[in-house]
Every structure is written in C-alpha cells, then in structure tokens.
C-alpha cells in the first residue's frame, strides 16, 4: 500500500507544528517521502551504543516526512520502570515503547501493547525483516509467539551474541575460523598464553541475566534447552538432560583450560574490557559492542577483531540467544498517535531507512541491507556473520515470569563456574527450582529424573 504523495492530507491525522513542516514533507522529501503525514509521537528508549544511530535515523524520518518524533532517553537501569509506569497509568506518557527482550513478554501478556494490524489492518510486514525467533508476533488468546498470532512489534535492534576473535592472532598461528565447539576449544587452547593473552574470556558473573546469557549459545548449540517446546505451551524442564551436562562441562572446561582465572566475577563490561585491551583471543559477545572494537579512543586492537556466528555441535545450527529490542505501540494512548507510531514503523522497516541506520553506526533489521555492497566493506565485516546467524536466533523465554528463571540460572551457573558445586548438582538444583516456578504460575510443566 503506497500512501499518497501528492498534496493531499490523508484522513489519518493532522500535522501539528505548522504548515511549513507539511511543505517540507511534500517538497524536500521527493520520491523518498513514502509515509503519510501524522501526529507527533514520543518514543521511550534507553541510552546505549546504538542509540546515536537510532537518533540519526529518526532525524532522517523527520526530515523526509515532516512528522515529529520526540525521544525520551533513559538509563538502562530504570527504563523498564519508566515503561511500566507509563503503560499502567490510565493515560500513557509514551506512544512507542522500545522493549528489551527481557521484558517484552511481560508487556505482551499484560495487554499493554496494541497489535499493529489492529491499528492499521493494511500494514504489511516487509518480507526482508528478521522475525527474531517469532517474537514480533503474539496470540493473546493462546498466549504463544508464533506467526499465526497478531503482529505486535517491529524489531528496533536485532542483538544476538557473535564470536569475536583476534584475526591477527589467527593469522599468526595459521588458524581458520572456529565453527564447531571442538574447533573453538582447540583454537582457544593454542592462543592461550596467560597472563598476557587468555584463550577465551567468559562472562561468569552473577547478575541480571549475566552468566546465563553467556551460556545459552553453548546450551542450545549442543542441542540442549531449558524447556521442551514453548511454542506448543509445554514447559517441561529439560535443563538437566545429558546434553545439558555436556554443555556445562564444556563451558567449565573452556574456562579452566583456556579462560580467565577469575571468570566467576567477570561481567559484560569486564569481558569487553579484556577484549579491547588485547587480553582475550575469543569472546562471545552481543554484536552491539562492535563499535568499541574499532574506536581508537576505546580500543588497543583496532581492526584486529573478526566476527563469526557462535560455534555449534556438528550437524546442528548455530544457536545465539536473543537480547534484542522491539518497538511496540502502547495501548493507552490516543488513536491518532497510535497511527502515527505505526507510520514510523512502516518507514523504519524499509531498506532505505535501514541503510541509513547502518551508515550511522546502527545494526540493521532488514536482510536487504546485508545483501547490499556495504556489507563488503571492512568496517562492516560483522554484517555477513550476523546475517548468517540471525535466522537461527532463539527466543529463550516466551513468558513474562522469565526473570525469576534467569535469576535461578545466574545463581546456579555462577556457583558452578566458581567451583562451589558440581555440574550435576548445579543442573539438578536449577531444574528443580525452575520446575517449582513454572508450577507456581500454573504452566504445563514436568521434570526429568535427576542426573547422577
């Protein structure tokens, strides 16, 4: 559906802010002004490395269409609170909510987000947009996230972990990219020369989804998982299976043989620190940190870091866990603003907007950009590995009480990494507790017999 570009105000909305803006929309935008004129909207978002690129992309939208967008930027610690305050009030403060993977389920289940197709039935999802583990859809009746549900949000930032490795060290040792776990273990062992360089630096600290997030690619990459089949509503706990044991054994072995001696106390910032100061040969890190690697003010290894999809067991696909951001429209705001928000999303998902986004330093959500020649440039060498990994991104939790489960995982995994408890004990006790939590909230659940 192509909105009118001739000088006709659509029945959708009224331009607030002067006729001059309307003239800009239809004049300077030219053939690129595909969005209709709409009300000003406010977006709640957090400060982050990719925020600046988002801001520039929004400014481009404003220039091309004349619609106004106000960005309320908050610290990460507290952005959830601000969104909750807004959606729970009778009248919301914000129209577009930029939700983190940690809490979007809460907002879906609570009925706080209005389906895009409910606001505008003619909205067509660009077929090149990554669907990120089907998290952009939600069935409010069955309460599952599958393409059969309604379209609730558009991805804003498709963040998944990639394997960062030192290309220069690889060249020096004649190594090739690690694709399987066995190869990663071998490469990390060869490059491990403590205390100058550690073969791999892992994020073992206990925090809010800290060590657990680091562990997901290993768990799922070996073919394991926390629940049996979330999409079908079966929350039987499968964490303490033999595959789970293999994965955790591997994770601890890596740390012991090629890792940092203080893995149990390293959090995300510490891991990145180790990489930028040149002390790590490999890290598993969210792609959002790529900009730090090549910034001479922040890194001692400029242009030396390469990227690859997270390793996996042979025969299985790569399995990065999602740490992404989705943009959904709040339910408790006036209809005109809802439609204006959808207008923005319609523009944002397109290839042109996403090309501008990546040039400003962001991470595109549209696969067409990854096929563009820009992906060949050295500065954007992370794009090809990311494009290979994104279709396999896994949404670990499809229910709102996920934070209780991640708290259990973080504590148990941290204790295992610190050597306080054995692998079997860790997996068994975590599974037992997770089973308890799922039962408490009346999910269909079960458990496996304990590991010996």
């Amino acid at each position, binding site marked *: 559906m192509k909105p009118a570009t001739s000088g006709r105000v659509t029945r959708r909305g009224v331009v607030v802010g002067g006729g001059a803006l309307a003239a800009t929309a239809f004049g300077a935008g030219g053939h690129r002004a595909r969005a209709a004129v709409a009300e000003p909207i406010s977006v709640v978002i*957090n*400060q*982050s*490395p990719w*925020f*600046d690129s988002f*801001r520039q992309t929004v400014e481009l939208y404003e220039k091309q269409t004349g619609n106004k967008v*106000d*960005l*309320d*930027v*908050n*610290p*990460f*610690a*507290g952005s959830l*609170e*601000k969104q909750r*305050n807004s959606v729970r*009030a009778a009248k919301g*403060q914000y129209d577009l909510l930029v939700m983190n993977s940690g809490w979007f389920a809460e907002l879906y289940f609570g009925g706080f987000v209005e389906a895009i197709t409910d606001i505008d039935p003619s909205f067509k999802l660009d077929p090149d947009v990554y669907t990120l583990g089907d998290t952009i859809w939600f069935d409010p009746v069955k309460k599952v996230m599958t393409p059969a549900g309604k379209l609730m949000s558009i991805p804003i930032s498709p963040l998944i972990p990639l394997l960062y490795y030192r290309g220069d060290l690889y060249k020096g040792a004649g190594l090739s990219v690690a694709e399987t776990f066995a190869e990663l273990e071998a490469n990390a062992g060869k490059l491990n020369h403590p205390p100058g360089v550690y073969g791999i630096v892992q994020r073992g600290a206990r925090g809010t989804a800290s060590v657990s997030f680091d562990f997901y690619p290993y768990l799922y990459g070996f073919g394991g998982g926390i629940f049996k089949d979330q999409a079908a509503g079966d929350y039987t706990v499968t964490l303490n299976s033999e595959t789970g044991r293999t994965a955790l054994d591997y994770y601890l072995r890596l740390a012991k043989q090629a890792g940092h001696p203080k893995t149990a106390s390293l959090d*995300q*910032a510490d891991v*990145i*620190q180790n990489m*930028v*100061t040149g002390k790590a040969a490999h890290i598993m890190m*969210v792609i*959002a*940190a790529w900009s*730090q690697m090549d910034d*001479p*003010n*922040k*890194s*001692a290894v400029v242009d030396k870091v390469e990227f690859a999809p997270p390793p996996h067991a042979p025969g299985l696909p790569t399995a990065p866990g999602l740490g992404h951001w989705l943009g959904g429209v709040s339910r408790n705001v006036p209809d005109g603003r809802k439609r204006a928000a959808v207008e923005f999303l319609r523009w944002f998902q397109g290839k042109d907007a996403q090309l501008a986004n990546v040039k400003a330093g962001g991470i595109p959500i549209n696969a067409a950009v990854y096929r563009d020649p820009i992906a060949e440039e050295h500065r954007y060498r992370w794009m090809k590995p990311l494009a290979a990994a994104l279709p396999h991104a896994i949404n670990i939790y499809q229910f709102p009480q996920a934070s209780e489960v991640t708290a259990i995982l973080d504590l148990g995994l941290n204790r295992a990494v610190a050597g306080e408890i054995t692998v079997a004990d860790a997996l068994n006790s975590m599974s037992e507790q997770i089973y308890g939590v799922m039962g408490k909230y009346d999910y269909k659940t079960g458990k496996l017999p304990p590991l010996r």
Partner: protein
Amino acid sequence: MSLLTALRRHGVAKHAALIAAAAIVVVPVVWVVAAGFRTQISLLMGAFWFTPVLASFNEVLFSKTSDFLVNYRNSLVVGLTSTALCLMVATLAAWSLHRMRWPTWVVHVFLGWALVFHMMPPIALASAWFTMARAVGLDSTLLSLVLAHTVLNLPMALWLMGVYVRDVPIELEEAARIDGASTPTLLWRIVLPIIAPGLAAAAVLSFVFSWNEFAVALNLTVKATATVPVAIAKFAQEYEIRYTQMAASAALSILPALILLLFAQRYIVKGLTQGAVK
C-alpha cells in the same frame, strides 16, 4: 623540652593523621576527575601517565544526546528549593514539638513515624509517587520532585534540628517571653541565631542528598526535567560503563556542592563565634 613534647605541642601527630586521612579521601576523587580527561582505553590499560583530552567533557556538555547543562540547572533548582523548604518546615516543626505544649504521645508518634518512613526503600515509594503525580498532572514538572525530596529529607532534618533546638538554653526563651516577645519574634531573634550552625550543617546534607538522589528522580522526571544523577546513570549502559564520560560528568557534578560547602563552612565558623553562650 623533649622531642615528644615539642611534637605534641605543635600537634604534628594530629596533622600527620589528618593528612593521611585526607589522602585516602582525596586520591579516589582526584583520580575520578583525572579520568574525565583520559581516553577510555588509557584508563582500561591502567597506565599512570596519559595525555589529557577534552573529548569526554565535550561529549558530556555539548553533544546532541546530552542535556547536561539543562540537567545541571534542574538539579540546582530542585536541590535549593527542596532544601529551603525542608529545613524551614523541619525547624519549625521540631521547635513546636520540643518546646511547645504538646502531649508527649504526639511527639513520640510523629517522630517515630518519621523514623519508620525513613526506613522505606525509596524505590518502593517512587512508583506510588509517580501515580499520585500523574493523577494531578504534575508528573512532567519539577514540583513533584521538589516535594518528593523535601519529604525524603524531612525525617533526618526533623531529628537533627530537634537535637539543635533542644540545645538552646531555655532560660533565654523564658527571658524573651517575659519581655513580651511573640512566637515569631522569639524564633527569629533568639532561636535562629543559636541554631544557625546546625541549620547550616543540615542544609548542606539535605542539599547533597537531593543532588545525588537517583531512584526517585528517575521515576518522577522526563527528559526536560531530568537531574544530574539520571544523566550520569545513562553512562552506565548495558554493554559498557562509559567511564570517562561518567567521570567527566561526575567531576562537573561535584562543583556546586563543593561551592555550597565552602560557603557554609565560613557560616558555621561565624555562627559559632557569635552565637556561643559564654
């Protein structure tokens, strides 16, 4: 005279101890301020010597994503207003409670309640206050934060001023009453000058707490009314702590409190020499 006596007379030991303590206090602060002039990588590499750059200060003060000067102004307005309000309210209430004819249970219940209130985690209060502010349409104004800070500092101010108010010799008040002074005159002419040093100390503390308060400020402000801690917190991001920008903004944020402190310092000394009962 022995060496020990000579040292004692000149207070060398005291000075040595004080200087050592001063060093422990100052070194991290200086280090923070210096960090604002470094590049992130030089900080992470732990290098001692570095070439100063202004990039972090530039970004904090002048970049498009930073409203630091606005945040600064907001913090100043909220800090000064809430401190003035809080101290005024607290001093009057403390004097009324301790020096006027209230039944003892009133005094104990009110002060006890203030204590209990002081124990509540500010985060739990913030959500409730947001709902209330939104209901009356104050959620995007500074007034809601001013009131919140006033009430947050009230318990401490009440108790502090209670201590200082009770130190005022009752004979003075009696004498003034006999001379026919009304309550306002009594407060203004007799009580106020004597409690002035305590008032100054309480004011400094109240201002500092308001200046540094984060949890409530986060909930009750929007971009236009955000205060300095909210701005600084934005540098502690999900994937990195932008140490150098955080340090730069922290260095800038210390300034007003420091100036106020120097100011109040002299007032404390002046108050003491004038108001002492001898």
